[in-house]
C-alpha cells in the first residue's frame, strides 16, 4: 500500500470526521465579500428606489448646509457683513481685502461643497430609473435634482470667474461663465419641462417624501430662471420667467431640529460675523427694511478690525429659522431692471414703486414702507433698483453679483472681484486648471 493510499484509507475509516470537520470549519464563512454595516455604499444606493430618493433628500441638505459659505464671501467682500473678534483671519481678510491668501478655507469651501451637491444631483439623475418611469415622483425628483444642480452652478459662477462643469476625479477644465450659464438654463428649462404636465396633486407624494417643508418646486425653478436670465442679459426671458412666479408663495429651506440654520450658527454659534452698521445708517429715512434684517435696537458686538461698527442679525437669529431660496420682490426688481435696461422705463417705475410702497405682507418678507418716487433717466432708475435690491435682498448671496452688473451705480466696491480657483484644485486636478 502506498503511503498516500494509507492516508486516504485512514481518513475513510471512522476518523474521516477529522478531516471533514477540519475542512468544513475552515471553509465555513470564507466569503470575503463583506458589506459595510455602518453605511450603505454607492452601489447599494443607486440601485434602490429608496436609496435614490434618500440621496435627493441628502442633496437638499448639502445645499441647505452650504448657504453660509456663499454668504461669507458674498457678504464680507461687499457691504453686508463685518467680522467679530472671534472671526478667523481669512474672514477679516475678505472684509478688508488685506493679506488675502489663496490657501484660505473660505476659498475652497464654496467650491468643494457646490460640487458635492452637483455630484449628489448626478447620482439622483443616474439612478432616476429606479423610480417608476412616468411617475410624478420620478418627474418631481428629476426636476429637483436639475434645479439644485443649476442653483449650485449658479452660486459657483457668482463666486468664481470660471468653473468646471463635469464632475470627475479625472479632472475637468474650468469653463467661461457664458457656457456655465447655458448649462444652467438647459438644466432649469428641462426641469420645468419635466413637471410641466404633472399636476400639483400628483406631486403630493414627491412633496411628502422628497422635497423639504415650505419648498415650492415650480416657483423656485421659474425664479432661478428669472435670476440667471437677468445675469446673462436675456431680459425678455427674465421677464417671462419672473411673471410665472407667484408673488404670494415663499419657497424656503427649512431647518427643523436636529439641523440648524448655518447662518444663525455662523453669527450666533461661532460668533464670527454680524451686520455692518452702515446698512442701517445708509438707509433712506423711513425704510422699514433695516430693522427687518438687523437688530437696530440693541448695541452691536465689537468688531475686528476695531473700527468695524456692527449690528446683530435679526433675521436668522434663531436656530431653526428657514432660509428663502428667493424673495417674491426679487422678481419685481428683476423685471424692473429688465424693463429699465430694455428702454421700457414706465413699466420699470411701476415695479420700483410697488416695492417701495409695500407696507405689509402675509409672507415673512421685508417691506419698505416708503413713499413712491419719480425717476426719469435710465441711470437714475438703475441706481434706485440697485438700492432697492440692497435693502430688499440683504444677505441673499446676490450683492456681489449686483456689483458686477451695476458697477458705479452702487455705493460699494467689492474687496475681491472673484475668488481664485482653490489651491487644492490647482494642485491635484490632472487637467491643470490653473495653468
Amino acid at each position, binding site marked *: 500500500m502506498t*503511503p*498516500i493510499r*494509507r*492516508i486516504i484509507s485512514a481518513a475513510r475509516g471512522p*476518523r474521516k470526521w*477529522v478531516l471533514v*470537520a*477540519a*475542512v468544513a*470549519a*475552515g*471553509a*465555513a*464563512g*470564507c*466569503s*470575503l*465579500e*463583506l458589506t459595510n*454595516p*455602518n*453605511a450603505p*455604499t*454607492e452601489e447599494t*444606493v443607486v440601485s434602490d428606489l429608496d436609496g435614490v430618493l*434618500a*440621496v435627493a*433628500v*441628502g442633496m*437638499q*441638505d*448639502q445645499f*441647505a448646509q452650504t448657504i453660509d459659505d456663499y454668504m461669507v464671501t458674498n457678504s464680507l467682500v461687499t457691504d453686508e457683513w463685518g467680522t467679530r473678534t472671534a472671526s478667523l483671519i481669512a474672514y477679516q481678510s475678505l472684509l478688508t481685502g488685506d493679506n488675502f491668501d489663496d490657501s484660505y478655507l473660505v476659498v475652497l469651501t464654496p*467650491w*468643494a461643497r457646490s*460640487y*458635492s451637491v*452637483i*455630484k*449628489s444631483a448626478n*447620482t439622483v439623475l443616474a439612478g432616476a430609473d429606479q423610480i417608476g418611469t412616468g411617475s410624478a415622483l420620478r418627474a418631481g425628483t428629476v426636476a429637483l435634482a436639475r434645479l439644485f444642480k443649476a442653483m449650485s452652478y449658479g452660486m459657483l459662477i457668482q463666486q468664481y470667474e470660471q*468653473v*468646471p462643469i463635469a*464632475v*470627475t*476625479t479625472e479632472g*475637468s477644465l474650468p469653463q467661461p461663465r457664458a457656457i456655465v450659464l447655458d448649462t444652467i438654463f438647459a438644466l432649469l428649462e428641462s426641469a420645468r419641462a419635466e413637471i410641466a404636465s404633472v399636476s400639483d396633486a400628483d406631486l403630493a407624494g414627491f412633496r411628502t417624501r*422628497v422635497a*423639504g417643508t415650505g*419648498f415650492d418646486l415650480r416657483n423656485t425653478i421659474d425664479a432661478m430662471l428669472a435670476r440667471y436670465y437677468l445675469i446673462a442679459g436675456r431680459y425678455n426671458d427674465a421677464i417671462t420667467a419672473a411673471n410665472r412666479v407667484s408673488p404670494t408663495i415663499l419657497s424656503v429651506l*427649512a431647518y*427643523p431640529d436636529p*439641523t440648524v440654520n448655518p447662518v444663525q450658527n455662523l453669527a450666533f454659534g461661532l460668533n464670527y460675523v454680524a451686520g455692518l452698521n452702515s446698512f442701517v445708517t445708509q438707509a433712506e429715512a423711513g425704510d422699514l427694511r433695516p430693522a427687518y434684517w438687523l437688530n437696530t435696537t440693541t448695541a452691536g458686538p465689537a468688531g475686528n478690525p476695531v473700527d468695524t461698527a456692527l449690528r446683530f442679525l435679526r433675521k436668522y437669529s434663531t436656530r431653526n429659522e428657514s432660509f428663502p431660496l428667493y424673495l417674491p420682490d426679487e422678481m419685481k426688481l428683476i423685471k424692473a431692471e429688465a424693463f429699465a435696461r430694455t428702454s421700457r422705463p414706465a413699466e420699470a417705475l411701476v415695479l420700483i414703486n410697488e416695492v417701495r410702497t409695500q407696507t405689509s405682507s402675509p409672507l415673512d418678507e421685508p417691506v419698505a414702507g416708503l413713499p413712491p418716487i419719480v425717476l426719469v433717466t435710465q441711470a437714475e432708475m438703475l441706481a434706485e433698483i440697485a438700492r432697492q435690491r440692497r435693502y430688499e435682498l440683504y444677505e441673499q448671496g446676490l450683492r456681489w453679483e449686483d456689483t458686477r452688473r451695476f458697477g458705479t451705480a452702487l455705493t460699494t466696491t467689492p474687496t475681491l472681484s472673484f475668488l481664485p480657483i*482653490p489651491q*487644492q*484644485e490647482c*494642485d*491635484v*486636478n490632472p487637467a491643470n*486648471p490653473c495653468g
Partner: protein
Amino acid sequence: MGSRRFLSFLSVALLVFPAFASAQETGTIQGRVADATGAPVASAQIRVEGTTLGAMTGADGTYRIGGVPAGVHTISTRRVGYAPERATVTASAGGTITQDFTLRAAAVTLNEVVVTGVAAPTTKRQLGNTIETVSGEQVARAPGVSSIDQALQGRVTGAVVSENSGQPGGGISIRLRGTNSILGGAEPLYVIDGVIVDNSSEALVALSGNAPRGNQALSNRMADFDPGDVERIEVLKGAAAAALYGARANNGVIQIFTKRGQAGRPSVAAATDVTWSKTPKRYDLNMHPNAGFQDVAFGGAPAFGAPIQRFDIQDQIFRTGLGTNTRLSISGGNEGTTYYLGGGYQKEEGIVRPTEYDRTNVRANLSQRLSDQFEVGLRGNYINSTNDFIPEGEQTQGVLTSVVFTPTSVNPAFNPNTGRYPYNPLLGANPLDVIENWSAPEKVTRILGGFDLTWRPLTSVSLKYAAGLDDYRREANYFQPPFSTSATFTGSIQNPVQFSRLFNNDLTASHAWTPRQSLGLNSSVGFRFTSDKNETVRAAGANLGPGQTLVGGATQTATQSKTELRTVGWYIEERVNLAERLYLTGGLNWDASSAFGPDERVQMFPRLGLSYVLDRESRGTSGLGSMLSSFRLRAAYGETGGQPPGIYSRFANYENTSFSGRPGLVSSITAGNPNLKPERQREYEGGFDVGFFDERALVEFSYYDKRTNDLVLSIPLPPSSGFSQQFQNIGSLTNKGVELALNTVNLASERFAWRSRFTYSANRSKVAKLVTAADTLLFDYLNAIIVGQPVGVFLGGTYARTPDGQIAYRDFTTGGQTYLLPYRQQDTLASGAIVNSRRIIGDPNPKFVATFGNDFDIGERIQLSVLLDGRFGNDVANFSRRIQELFGAAKVNEREISGDTVNRTFSGNPTGRSLIYEEYIEDGSYVKLREIALQFTLPPGIVSRFGADRASLRLAGRNLKTWTDYSGLDPETNTFSASTVSRGVEFATTPIPKQFIIGLSFNY
C-alpha cells in the same frame, strides 16, 4: 472559498510529500534528565529525530515516549539554559528502552525549539532569522509586572517597550525594529497558543489624548492576560521572520505559550505578592511668597509682587498605592491526560488617587491523548477586570493636567461656605473634586478559548487543526457630576460598550522525512481563517438629575458601529537540513482579506532563510575547539503586509443626514478606493552567532534592512470631483538597524553562579516617500512625517537667534517694567511674505537602546537578579513644563517675581512666545533600574512544616531608580498612548511608579 477547492488543494499538497517511512511495530523510550549536580531538569524537550514524536520531562525529570517505530533512532533533548544532548537508541517492538541524559549549563542555545513563524516546530539554529525567546521563568522573575507585554521590558533585543502611562493597568507600546506605518497601527500582532488575540487600544472615552488625536485609550488589551500563566514567549521582529503571518505582520509578532501540565503527581504552586507603589518624582512648583503675573490674572492676587498664599496639592493627589497579587496553579496528569489549572487575583492601587486596577483570571489547559495517533487539547481563559481611571494629559478635567495648568495661588480646597469645591479659574475641573466625586471605570470581561486536534497517521506526518476564540466585552462609564465644572454644567455620563469577537481557524499538515542521514526535509502546508468582529454601542446622557449615575437625564444619545474583518491565508513551507550544518527554509504565503477589493484581495508573501552552523551538532566535522565552540551565519528575506486604516475604505460610502425631518444620504467626501491593498514590507536580515568557552558565552549580531512600501495615506482629490480625499497606497519608509546580544555564564559553581545578558540595538527610520517630496504631515502637537526624516520628528517654532547663534532678545514692557524676552524665528519667503517658521527641533526615536541583566545564584538558597534598561538619544517634548511656565506654576517662574528681567520662560506675555517649542524639547535618555529581586529559598525544615516541597521569600523592586537629565516626571510615558506617530510627548501623564514588592511562594 469552496470546501471542494480546499480539499483538492490539500490533496495536491499531500501528493507532493515524498514516500513515507514504513513502520509497523512500535516500542517505548523512557528516561530521566538531570543537570550536572544530579538535580532533575523539568520541562526538557525530548524528540525522536526524523519524526514528530516527542515528550517533555515532568517535575521529577522523567519522560516517556510511546509509539516509537522499532528500529534505530536518534533522540535529542533540549532545554533553555542547557546545551543540547543526543543519543542513539534501538527501539524494539513492544519493548521499553531507558535513556537518561545529563545536561550542561550554557548561555543560550541555538537548539531551543521555536514554533512561531514556521509551519511546524523547529529549532533556532535552522532559521535564517532571529527569534527572541523569553521563558516563563524569566517572566516570573520580573517583579511587579501585571501584564505580559510589560514583562518584556528589557528582555528583547531590538524592542522598544514603553509604558505609556503610570496609571495601574496603563498601556504598553512595543516597537519592534522601528515604526512601520503612518496611518496604520504600529503595535505587534499578539498570538496566544496559536490564537491571534485582540490588542486594541481604541479609546471608549477620551481620558488622555483627545479623541481626534488618534483616539488612543490609556490601556491596551494585552493588559488582560496574567503573566503567571506564561510558559514561553517568542518574538518575531520583522518581515523576514513573520512572513507566515502574512498581511498582518508588518509590526512583528509576539507569540505567547501558556503553561501545560506534565505527567506526574499534581504540582501545586501558590504565590502571593504585596506591592507598594510610589511616584518617582513630583512637580517642582512655584512657591514664591509674592504674586506673579498669572496669580494676578487667575489666582485673585491684588497686584504683581503682593504677598500671597500658595498651595501645593500634590500631597492630596499622590499616595502610596498598595497592591496584592495572589496566584494558585495546579498541574499534573498521567500518560493520557495532562492538565494545568491556574487562577489569580490582582489588585493594584495607583499612585494617583483614586486610580485602581483589579483583575481576576482563571485558566484551564487540558490535553488528552486519544490514541497513538490522536491528541486533543482544550484551553480556556476567563478574565474579569475593573480599571478605575482618572482623566489626565490633554483632558481639561485631568487631575495632573490641573496641577500643570493652575497657578499655585489658586486654592482648590473644599469650601464649606459654598458647599462645593471651587470652580477652576482656568480649566475644566477642580482636581480634588475629580478625585472625590468623578468616576471613569472601565470593565472588561474576556473569554479566550482554544481547541486543537493533532493527528499523526504516520510517525513522520502530523496534521493539526486548531480553532480559537477571543471574545470580550469592554464597558466604560465616565461620570461627570452636574455643576462640577461650572454653574451651568448639568453633568454628563458616557457609557460606551464594546463587543469584540476574534475567531481563528487553522489547519496545518507537516511531514518530516530523512532520506539520508545527512539530509532532512520538512514540508508543511497550512490554511488559516480569521474573523474579527467588533461592535460598539455608545450611550450617553446629559442634563442629569442629582444622584443619577446611569445613562438618563433630560438628554440622551446613542450611536452604534460595527465592523467585521475576515482573512483567509494559505501557506506552504519547505525546510531542508543538510548534515545539521546548512539549513534552508523557503515559504510562500497567500493572504486574502475582506478589507481589499477583488483585484487586490489575494496577496503573496515570500520568504527565504539560510543558516550555516558549525558546532557539536553539525555532522562531518570534528567539532570546533572549546574556545570558539560554535559559529553560525544566517541570512533571511521576507515580505509581510499591514492593514490599512479603516477596513471599509475600499467602498464608496454614504453617510446619514436629515433634511426637513426626512432621512437622507450623502456621499462621504472620502472616495472609496477599490484598489487599496496592504502596506507591504520587505526585510533583509543577516547576522552571526558565535559561542565561546563551551557555549558559556554567546554573541549574537544582526543587521536588518526593512522597507515598507504602499503606505496608506490620505491623498487630496480635486474638489471639483465632489470628493475631498481618498486613501491610496503611496508612501514608503525604511528602518535599518543593528542588534547585538551578549549572553554569558560568568561563573557556574555550585556555590556561586552568575549569568549576564547585555543587549544593544540601534534603529534608524527614514520616511522615503510621501505624495510629494515637499509634503509634511503634522500629527497632533509636534510630531511630523517629513521625507528624509525619521518617523515622527518634532517640528515646531524656534527662537530667533543672533547671527552668532545666540538667542535674540527684545524689550517687552509690562507693569512699568521692561523685560528682555526671546521671540519666535520668522522667515521671509520669496514672495516677500513674512511667516512664522517651523524647524525640526527633536526626534523622539532613541538612537539606541541597551539593557544589562545579571542573575546570581548564591549558594543553594539565594538568587539575586538585577536588570538595567536604558534608552539613549531620544527627545521628549515636555508639554507639562511648557504649560506650567506659561501659567506661572513652575519653579522657574519664581525668578521673574524676584525681578529677573532677562527671561526665557516668562509668564507675563504668554502669546508672545507661546509657539516657541524649542525650549521644551529635552533629552529623554534614561537608564532605569527596571528590576531588582532577591529571592530566598526557605530551608527544607521550615518548608516541610507547611507540607510544601519548596518555598521562597522574595524582596524586589521595580523602577526603583531612574538616571536621566529629563526635568519632567518620567521620560518614558506618552500622552498619546499607543499612537503610531505621536510619540515622546509628556503632558500631565502619570509617571511609572516605583514599586517595592514582598512575595512569598509555595510549591507542593
